[in-house]
């Protein structure tokens, strides 16, 4: 029989991203959270609010709206996803405009339509990102349901620049039961705008798999790895320049770039121009589930980003048993607090590849004796493993006593 009532552990997860056949890594972290937290719940239903832009900038045409209104409630079906959770894909028609408040309203409206006007049938609702899913969750949760929101979005500053979106976001913060940020930059930004809600904003981690690892630590740090989109923010050009400088001293160095993006052609040209094209492999996008295995085949992870809310790859690298060089770009310094020297080398975000070169040379000199990868891995496991993240979620959702059961 289906569990019900106030004590039942039924959870609805609302998310604008979830992996599908089109983009298998989109929202992989939401899927990982579901996989971690669903065991121990009576029932988990994931509502993937998939934005479908329509038109050329104006409102969604009436006839399109009417068709969707008619078809959506009839066609909503669940499929099984990870950990036996139910997954509902909800296509959300949105006008092709950059107004986040409008998008939030459309997400709330189409979720309501998909549910046939009834509220979400769960005493616990957890949304990912304040706008759009957080608003959709609050507008569709049952009156007595607890609504939690986790903010991951690195584009949050752009959202909060819009006055209407900022107003909606303030409402999300006011009405939700508790709010989580996956990194300090997000928390700082929210605290600055809404100091009255600072006490409501907490920290919650994304789960990382600690199942596999290198059989032995790398003997030398020669196989560099970057797992990052090839975009301006990730500053992979600095990484390639730093790699070219270091390779002059050690021609056996190689660099693998996992990830794709608009800058790919330009970066390939840069590698050729610097004479390191044969040592730099552009591996393209890789399924997130394969990342740990890729990490295990390399000696060193380098993260050269200008900004990261969390920096999941840093923890994944340490879980795989390889050291890291990372910029203090928001996430990594929080993740590695107290373990900086054990894990590798942290550097400031600078407008030059020079700091990466110095970091590599310093790290090479003190490797392996100056690091304690085992200790830092264990510390990361206690905080970011599936078990740890599941426990944190259960404590929040059902209280400490229920979580301990």
């Amino acid at each position, binding site marked *: 029989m289906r569990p019900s009532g106030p004590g039942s552990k039924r959870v609805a997860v609302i998310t604008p991203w979830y992996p599908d056949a089109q983009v298998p890594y989109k929202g992989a972290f939401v899927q990982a959270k579901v996989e971690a937290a669903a065991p121990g719940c009576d029932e988990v239903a994931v509502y993937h609010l998939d934005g479908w832009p329509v038109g050329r900038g104006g409102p969604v045409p009436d006839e399109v709206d009417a*068709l969707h209104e008619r078809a959506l409630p009839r066609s909503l079906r669940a499929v099984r996803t990870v950990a036996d959770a139910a997954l509902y894909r909800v296509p959300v028609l949105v006008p092709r405009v950059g107004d986040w408040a409008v998008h939030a309203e459309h997400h709330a409206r189409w979720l309501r339509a998909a549910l046939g006007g009834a509220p979400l049938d769960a005493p616990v609702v957890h949304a990912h990102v304040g706008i759009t899913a957080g608003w959709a969750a609050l507008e569709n949760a049952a009156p007595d349901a607890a609504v939690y929101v986790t903010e991951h979005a690195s584009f949050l500053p752009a959202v909060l620049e819009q006055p209407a979106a900022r107003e909606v976001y303030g409402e999300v913060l006011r009405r939700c039961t508790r709010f989580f940020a996956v990194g300090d930059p997000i928390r700082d930004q929210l605290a600055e705008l809404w100091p009255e809600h600072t006490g409501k904003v907490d920290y919650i981690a994304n789960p990382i798999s600690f199942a596999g690892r290198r059989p032995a630590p790398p003997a030398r740090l020669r196989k560099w790895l970057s797992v990052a989109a090839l975009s301006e923010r990730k500053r992979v050009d600095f990484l390639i320049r730093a790699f070219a400088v270091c390779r002059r001293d050690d021609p056996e160095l190689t660099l693998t770039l996992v990830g794709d993006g608009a800058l790919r052609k330009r970066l390939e040209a840069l590698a050729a121009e610097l004479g390191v094209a044969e040592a730099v492999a552009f591996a393209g996008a890789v399924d997130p589930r394969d990342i740990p295995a890729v990490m295990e085949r390399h000696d060193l992870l380098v993260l050269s980003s200008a900004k990261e809310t969390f920096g999941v790859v840093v923890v994944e690298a340490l879980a795989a048993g390889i050291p890291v060089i990372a910029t203090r770009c928001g996430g990594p310094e929080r993740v590695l607090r107290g373990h900086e020297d054990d894990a590798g080398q942290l550097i400031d975000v600078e407008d030059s590849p020079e700091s990466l070169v110095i970091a590599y040379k310093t790290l090479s000199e003190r490797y392996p004796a100056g690091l304690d990868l085992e200790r830092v891995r264990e510390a990361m496991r206690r905080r970011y493993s599936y078990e740890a993240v599941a426990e944190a979620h259960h404590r929040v959702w059902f209280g400490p006593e229920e979580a301990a059961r």
Partner: protein
Amino acid sequence: MRIAFLALSTKAQRRIEVHAAAAAADGHDTEVYVHGLARWAEAVFPAEVRVTHIAADFKPRGERRLARLFVRRLPLGLLRRLGRGPLRAPCKRLAGAWKFHVIKKLDARRKRDNARARRETIDAELTRVLAERAPDRLILVDGGSTAVAARILPQCPPGVRDVAIMYGYEDFKEPLHA
């Protein structure tokens, strides 16, 4: 069951490939309606999936010869020739203004007309194909295909007009709540 994927643009190409292959593997009579020979050239479907190119013969209208002569070549050529001497700066400004106020607007109008013609051709052909094949399920894959369905379904015969609409094959492959 006859399943038709309305997949005119390639925005959700990978998803359509996977879902259409799954539908065919489940023994359904599967058809995918696409538009744009070049952009769908690299799509991979199993042999059991029938791919129908909608409005495959549609060719956008180019600029007419006379218009090209009188709107582009003659005035711009004249200004170029006049601009070789001391009138260089005003001729350059005039050419810029001509391009901005006349040529750009005519180009935009031609593009709009072409888009409308393309839409009408697609709608007419798709309405005919749907009426002919009468699928049991029409699968919408993105905002564009939803908009096309909203336009053409009211024009279809009653049996087709009320076709069951689904959003992706995975949604009804393994229904939990039948």
